[in-house]
């Protein structure tokens, strides 16, 4: 895969440096891989930290800023950062009121996140964590706790970030982040696999590549193969299949209000995402379900993977107020 890169061994270092240079008024690179706010949060408020692999830009570090994260710890390409670095971040983010660590459910993030929590606790920091695991393709109803963390990190960052900014205590920030996490569901679809940018190799079983007229529901954020291969369908048909599965899993009833996010995986155009969103809107209207808030864009990508993630979330008054609160990060600003 043709790319504008230099030595593949330096990908992460160079991309983080470039990112920090591009947004000096919003964020800073601290040490090797801690993205911190340019102006730290005032002490006396709960810190909010996350961790995750690189190669998914703008996720996750693009959402460090006022009203969102305090620190994002960036790992290698598609690889979680180590626990000690995360523990350092937790310490740094602690303004005396403890820290909430948001972990996306992926093997490496769990291992490093848990290790960091251990290390931070041993150093006396008050630390709680919340897990996002809203993928329904890997987390069917009877074991939803197994689901991967996909674009649903964004509402959880937003809610936790806003709650912390407003001065809620750690228990309250954690509780509302959990509520957001428990009330969202995501499903992904892909029509083209990603490559690993350091090797250029396509991710996926070479003996069973995604055909030219196939799509795969459930393909992971790292290009991991999914479970629902089928013939490529139209935007409208795909939207309907995915929406139905999500509504069923979250058990949404007529009359309810939903947040809807359509997240492009990298190579899929905004044009396509709008066409998908249009159909989602129509279908929800037919079902008398109201879209109360929405986002369409690229929040977490996987190189040149083509496809999208559809996320729905049940909102309530408090969640909506926090969702609407101002924030100011490189890739999401709310006035």
């Amino acid at each position, binding site marked *: 895969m043709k790319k504008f890169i230099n030595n593949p061994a330096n990908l992460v270092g160079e991309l983080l440096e470039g990112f920090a240079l591009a947004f000096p008024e919003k964020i800073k690179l601290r040490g090797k891989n801690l993205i911190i706010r340019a102006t730290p949060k005032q002490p006396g408020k709960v810190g909010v930290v996350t961790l995750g692999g690189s190669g998914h830009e703008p996720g996750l570090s693009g959402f460090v800023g006022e009203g969102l994260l305090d620190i994002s710890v960036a790992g290698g390409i*598609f*690889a979680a950062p180590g626990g000690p670095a995360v523990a350092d971040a937790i310490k740094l983010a602690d303004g005396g009121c403890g820290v909430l660590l948001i972990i996306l459910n992926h093997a490496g993030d769990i291992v490093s996140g848990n290790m960091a929590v251990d290390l931070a606790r041993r150093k006396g920091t008050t630390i709680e964590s919340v897990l996002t695991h809203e993928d329904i393709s*890997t987390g069917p109803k009877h074991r939803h706790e197994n689901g991967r963390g996909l674009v649903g990190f964004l509402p959880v960052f937003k809610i936790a970030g806003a709650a912390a900014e407003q001065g809620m205590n750690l228990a309250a920030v954690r509780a509302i982040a959990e509520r957001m996490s428990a009330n969202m569901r995501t499903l992904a679809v892909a029509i083209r696999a990603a490559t*690993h940018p350091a090797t250029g*190799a*396509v*991710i996926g079983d070479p003996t069973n590549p995604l055909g030219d007229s196939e799509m795969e529901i459930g393909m992971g954020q*790292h290009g*991991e*193969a999914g479970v629902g291969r089928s013939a490529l369908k139209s935007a409208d048909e795909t939207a309907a299949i995915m929406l139905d599965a999500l509504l069923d899993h979250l058990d949404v009833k007529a009359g309810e209000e939903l947040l809807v996010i359509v997240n492009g995986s990298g190579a899929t155009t905004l044009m396509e995402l709008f066409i998908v969103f249009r159909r989602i809107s129509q279908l929800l209207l037919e079902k008398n379900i109201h879209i109360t808030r929405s986002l369409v864009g690229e929040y977490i990508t996987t190189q040149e993977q083509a496809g999208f993630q559809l996320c729905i979330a049940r909102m309530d008054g408090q969640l909506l107020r926090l969702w609407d609160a101002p924030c100011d990060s490189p890739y999401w600003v709310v006035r």
Partner: protein
Amino acid sequence: MSGTHLAVAEIQSMLDAGFSEVVQNHAQLTELDSISGDGDHGIAMLRAGESVRALLREPAKNIASVLVAVSGLLLSSDGGASSALLGSFFLGMADACAGKNELDWAEMSSAFHAGLQKLRCYTEAKAGDKTMLDALEPAVAVLVSSHTCNLTIEAVMALAARAARNGALQTKEMPARFGRAQHLGNRTIGWQDPGATTIALLFRGFEKGLQPKEHHSRG
């Protein structure tokens, strides 16, 4: 097998040989991870392995400090699940070696066991789940059960390496239940788990690293 001790230098050369095997086979590891994971396992192991090997060439204070440093490099290599788990493994070994300048074989095998215990703090995977545990558990079990037998260190490590290799081979038949691959379930059958393969390579290297040429017996 009593009476032999490993000093810092021997531990270093054992570790070095282990990571050397891993580094040499990184391409195979990436290939395996491309099939059912995200195609980066060999990359992570190459990067961590090379920095570990560079570190092992430096003189070291004591055994625990070597192991702490190895663990630190694995953890700070930001290499995902496998690096984090291996990092915790060597951290557990280090804790068990605190204050020691040489290890007898009983100490050595309990250090390996302590490593496994530490690693288990961070995953619930067990042999049978198609992860690195499929290779690591049987290998450590051999070390633990054999240090009482009358065998040389090399011979025990050779048995452990064989157990790791067999464990890794067996993952071919399994559906994945942990890590990124879990979601593919039966579609992973037929492919060896990358992490288990790494463990098998590591122990094959440990065996080579303990061969008499490098091994200074203190009998």
